[in-house]
């Protein structure tokens, strides 16, 4: 793992009417790490994702990603730059097959246009074949290859979450942003997810992880950012953060220890 910065956020702010969803949030994510983003409900985690991926325009602040600013880009331009995301409330292309979902993820890294589609020249055919092959590989990688031809909406919940990860990986991201991937998963599925996250990191993709499953966060994340009411209240290693009194106060009102036994 190297120490170079992949993403740095500076003083990001976002307000919705009277609600300050994000206030002066700054942080940096290094190449190759799994960076956790935690906080109580309504802390601004998903808002931060939406600002980062161009779905919201921030009121202030700026992002530097992979050596260039990321300001005012549309979601598709952000994806092109190399940030792919999943959604808290799964947003798959429901009536398309699992394979097609991943193939759509390849869109941004491929080029065929109208004429390629109609005349099916050699380049287009080769590209189509490559898209299909790569998509199968990714389905296999996340472990839903057996459901390649099933409609996305007919997949089991945990498989839908994995399919969303495969679709995001298809865009060849430098940063994979996951919004609560373990939500609704049972313990076995969560353990498998942990393995998948570690594989993704090992294969060279940096991960930004929003998660409520503390055991997962504490065991897999290198560093963690804690938000509360749109403000950063702590940043540091998993061990540091879970002993931070401010974090404990935010989560539990200050009385109970947040320490997770057997986390590692």
């Amino acid at each position: 793992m190297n120490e170079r910065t992949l993403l740095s956020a500076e003083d990001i702010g976002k307000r919705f009417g009277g609600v300050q969803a994000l206030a002066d949030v700054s942080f940096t994510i290094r190449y190759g790490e799994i960076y956790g983003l935690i906080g109580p409900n309504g802390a601004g985690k998903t808002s931060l994702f939406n600002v980062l991926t161009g779905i919201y325009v921030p009121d202030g602040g700026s992002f530097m990603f992979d050596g260039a600013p990321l300001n005012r880009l549309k979601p598709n331009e952000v994806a092109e730059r190399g940030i792919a995301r999943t959604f808290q409330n799964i947003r798959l292309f429901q009536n398309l097959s699992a394979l097609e979902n991943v193939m759509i993820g390849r869109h941004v890294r491929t080029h065929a246009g109208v004429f390629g589609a109609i005349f099916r020249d050699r380049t287009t055919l080769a590209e189509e074949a490559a898209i299909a092959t790569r998509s199968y590989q990714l389905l296999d990688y996340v472990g839903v290859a057996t459901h390649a031809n099933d409609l996305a909406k007919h997949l089991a919940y945990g498989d839908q979450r994995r399919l969303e990860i495969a679709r995001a990986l298809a865009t060849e991201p430098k940063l994979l942003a996951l919004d609560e991937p373990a939500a609704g998963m049972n313990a076995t599925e969560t353990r498998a997810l942990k393995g998948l996250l570690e594989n993704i990191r090992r294969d060279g993709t940096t991960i930004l992880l929003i998660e409520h499953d503390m055991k997962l966060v504490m065991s897999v994340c290198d560093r963690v950012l804690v938000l509360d009411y749109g403000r950063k209240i702590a940043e540091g290693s998993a061990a540091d953060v879970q002993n931070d009194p401010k974090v404990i106060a935010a989560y539990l009102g200050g009385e109970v220890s947040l320490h997770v036994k057997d986390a590692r």
Partner: protein
Amino acid sequence: MSGGTRADIPLRVWAGVALVAIALGVLPFVAALAGQAWVRILNFAMVYTMLALGLNIVVGFAGLLDLGYIAFYAVGAYTYALLASPQFGIHLPFWVILPIGAAIACLFGVLLGAPTLKLRGDYLAIVTLGFGEIIRIFLNNLNSPINITNGPQGINLIDPFRIDGLSFASTESLLGITFSGPQKYYYMLLLLTIGVIVVNLRLQNSRLGRAWEAIREDEIAAKAMGINTRNVKLLAFAMGASFGGVAGAVFSATQQFISPESFGLFESIIVLAMVVLGGMGNIPGVVLGAVLLTLLPEVLRYTMEPLQQGLFGRVLIDAETIRLLVFGIALVAIMLFRPAGLWPSAVRKRELEVAKAAE
């Protein structure tokens, strides 16, 4: 993925294709036994097939409800009419005008698409509805101060399709077989329609086709996956409109007379009904929908009176009146019994099976 090489296709499939080809080849002569009117109806069925396939790109693939689609048909028809009639004394050949018609319709598609990019569902439907009416009203009124479209009188004496002096408007003998005008048009339309179907099949199974379907399913997710939704939606409007333009040009050439009356809201709705009843997003379904919805009113026109004679001994209701009633009932019945369309895409069929199993 799909298909494979030619060697993989079994003989049975080739035999099937050959049979369909022969059937389509002799169809105009069979239809002519019942009168040339039926050959014309077949030709209309193909014009509508092209229209419905074009609309299917916008509505079926990209999921953008377009109620003004007939405007592109009108643009194609008027482009041909103005470039091949005594109206301006211009007489360009068909094959020159066809791409021009498609290109101008395509341009109008983008003109409609650009301001409506952020609209979906009901709101988009209303705006496109307005657009369709605007085009029709323009055509109706562009006869002053400069007479361009000849207003409500329409444009007459439009050139028929010609190959080397062989006019498609007249009857001719070739190799001992007599070909009437509509029969010649039939073969030209058949070629064009097959071309349009192939292009549509290829578009659907392409990077672009998948992007359209992604937008239909979830626009925000599509954006987050890096799809430039603005361009891809504009392409859907443009491609759909160009097929409408082609159909319009052909319509002009076969009818040799057009007026704004042919491009009203009712036409838009009929074409949309073809797409929805046939099976939205499924090309074979849309073709079936277009053919059935063109033929059904005509069949009813000729069968309603004999049917009443047989049942009641006399004609109770005028055929023109009752056929629309029966047509309407048939449409409602199809939607009741086949809610996903007559020939839904494999995807929708699977959905229905699952829904049934759950019952």
